[in-house]
């Protein structure tokens, strides 16, 4: 599209006063058809009675003027100019006998129709634009009250989820216990050594507990000492080195070494 014209500032008054004076400025037009429509309006006649010949001449003059002023013109303006020049020559020359091509009159009529159609849709656009627009002349409720969605939350959870969650908690505790407490352990090896030392001195029944007292000074050692000692004792019984006796549940455990094979069977 063309730039603003250099003489635009020079003669603004003239332009306003004498409308027909052709103002060469393509900027204001929406393409060649729009320009043609504007030129046709300047003929101040009904579009039905428009002289296409005169219009073509005016258009060509306009374009020539614009080119003389070295305005950059979009190609479609030039294409239209060339086509109008062709139409003009056809209209001026005597019409050849009916051929394949449409006659010059038909072409002119088609152009006039196109102009009228553009004019008509312009008129429609204007009417549309003049209607009451929502938000411009006419208004909807400014504070619409939305449909309140009452959300009844329905929670989903299965017993499996519940148990898993609980187990997860407890498992953490479980693992934590193992790592936190360093347990004092009287190992089976310790127990075996201690028992063998004991058996070496023994000749008759004696309570295991009495002997083990020395290893249970620390109260926390009591369960592990008793457990390991009992295991070691049973191990030695199995090996035939010891015999064990307990009179009733929770009563003291008595041990006695076996010196010969005859007693071992008893």
């Amino acid at each position, binding site marked *: 599209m063309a730039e603003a014209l250099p003489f635009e500032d020079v003669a603004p008054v003239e332009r306003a006063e004498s409308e027909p004076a052709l103002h060469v400025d393509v900027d204001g037009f929406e393409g060649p058809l729009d320009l043609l429509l504007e030129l046709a309006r300047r003929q101040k006649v009904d579009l039905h009675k428009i002289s296409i010949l005169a219009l073509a001449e005016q258009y060509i003059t306009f374009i020539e003027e614009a080119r003389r002023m070295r305005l950059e013109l979009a190609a479609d303006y030039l294409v239209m100019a060339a086509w109008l020049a062709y139409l003009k020559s056809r209209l001026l020359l005597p019409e050849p006998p009916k051929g394949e091509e449409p006659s010059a009159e038909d072409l002119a009529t088609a152009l006039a129709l196109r102009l009228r159609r553009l004019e008509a849709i312009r008129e*429609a656009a204007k009417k549309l634009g003049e209607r009451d627009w929502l938000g411009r002349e*006419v208004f909807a409720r400014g504070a619409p009250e939305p449909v309140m969605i009452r959300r009844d939350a329905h929670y989903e959870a299965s017993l499996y989820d519940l148990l898993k969650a609980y187990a997860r908690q407890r498992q953490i505790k479980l693992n934590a216990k193992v790592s936190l407490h360093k347990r004092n352990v009287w190992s089976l090896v310790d127990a075996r050594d201690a028992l063998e030392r004991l058996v070496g001195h023994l000749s008759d029944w004696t309570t295991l507990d009495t002997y083990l007292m020395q290893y249970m000074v620390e109260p926390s050692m009591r369960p592990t000492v008793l457990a390991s000692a009992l295991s070691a004792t049973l191990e030695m019984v199995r090996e035939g080195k010891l015999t064990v006796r307990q009179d009733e549940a929770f009563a003291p455990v008595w041990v006695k070494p076996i010196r010969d094979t005859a007693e071992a069977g008893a």
Partner: protein
Amino acid sequence: MDDTEDTVDETPEVSKDDVPSVPDHREATRIAEALLFASAAPLSVDDLAGRLPEGADVGAILEDLMALYADRGVHLVRVAGRFAFRTASDLAFVLARNVVEQRKLSRAAMETLAIVAYHQPVTRAEIEEIRGVATSKGTLDTLLETGWIRLRGRRKAPGRPVTYGTTPHFLEHFGLDAIEDLPGLEELKGAGFLEGRVPPDLSVPVPSDDQALREDEDPLDHDELFQPLSIDEGGTGGE
């Protein structure tokens, strides 16, 4: 229910039975009024029927409400085949003052919108043919963005160009009940300006914003439906 009531006046013996339904009509009218007032968007008869008490005569209720509000500051109007409360248009002079800034459509956009409205379904090439100038992509994008026009489908023609049409939102915005209510439509039709685009055998020389595609339209491709703004028809290029 109220149908019955109206006819009822002529047949008194039935009307006794219907007496209890009178407050129902009143109540249904109140509910319809509340629903229409509460909604910014127009409501269809079906919308209303679904929310009103069983058997309510939606048509009669709407007529009552329209009459009730006829000379008030707020009117019940039909737009896009639906119903909505709108401020009376003669009060625009007071209300327009609080319009912050109405986006103005350029002349090109307004013309393009008119062409889409009156000639729909219409392709970009057809719009350009009527205006005699290339249509910039921005113009169509602007119109798509307003929500007033939409991509309808693709013309069954070489190049399968996209066809454009208007939306219910367009009707709502311009206060039209149906596309046939476009101003000056008869004149355009009478002058034959709406013909001659589509092949004569298919031509229906009236605009149609019907959701259904015409015989000469194909549906859009799947992804076009979800990204309408990003579509490039590979068209004629900008101005």
